[in-house]
């Protein structure tokens, strides 16, 4: 692998992902890295009091990638990290399926933990994805949560999503 090889930072895809492989690609052979922090979101079988049989994820092609790229730039500006990767699935998903992942690498754990949480808080309220759930009462669009706006506000960024 060439020394200047850079794996993509953002992928939006219908296929599943392999967290271990993604982390290995992000880490590469960079011996400055001493910490890897990752988050994986999965589909629950219940939400807001209803059973969830499946979930359909829609996004805004082009804007999604652009928004997440900007978030990763922000994470690099705010935290002492050496790399970050976001993979988000779209299309039809079942309970237990992986929805998305964030992975961050840094020299020490503190910066990775913070950047990982920052990226999640940012993505929840600023990346154009929408979830629709299939429940016994019929299909319904998932409501945005005010708590997610509050989570982003902790980083000094005002969100007015929900």
């Amino acid at each position, binding site marked *: 692998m060439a020394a200047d090889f850079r794996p993509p930072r953002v992928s939006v895809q219908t296929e599943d992902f392999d967290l271990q492989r993604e982390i290995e690609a992000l880490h590469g052979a960079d011996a400055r890295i001493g910490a890897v922090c990752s988050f994986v979101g999965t589909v629950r079988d219940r939400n807001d009091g209803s059973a969830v049989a499946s979930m359909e994820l829609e996004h805004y092609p082009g*804007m999604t990638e652009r928004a997440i790229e900007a978030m990763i730039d922000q994470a690099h500006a705010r935290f002492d990290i050496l790399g970050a990767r976001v993979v988000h699935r779209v299309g039809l998903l079942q309970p237990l399926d992986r929805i998305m992942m964030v992975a961050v690498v840094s020299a020490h754990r503190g910066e990775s933990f913070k950047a990982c949480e920052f990226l999640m808080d940012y*993505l929840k309220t600023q990346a*154009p*994805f*929408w979830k629709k759930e299939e429940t016994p009462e019929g299909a319904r*669009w998932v409501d945005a949560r005010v708590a997610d706006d509050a989570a982003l506000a902790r980083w000094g960024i005002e969100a007015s*999503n929900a």
Partner: protein
Amino acid sequence: MKTIRIRYFASVREALGGGETVRTEAGTLADLRDELIARGGAHATALARGKAVRMARDQLMSQEDAELADGAEIAFFPPVTGG
């Protein structure tokens, strides 16, 4: 006159379709939204004032007071729920 490409997503897309191209004199995103509401019917319902409608201008999250330039791509959608 400006030519604006409009895109709709999620519940707004279900109500209004994937999008349309319009010719307009609207000065801001708010003006454009009002113009669409004034059509009545599904547009008035889906984009109604007081309804949580978020907007993007040229694929960046945008506020309603943002200016509308000729050739812009404007999107209307409900609050986002990814992650």
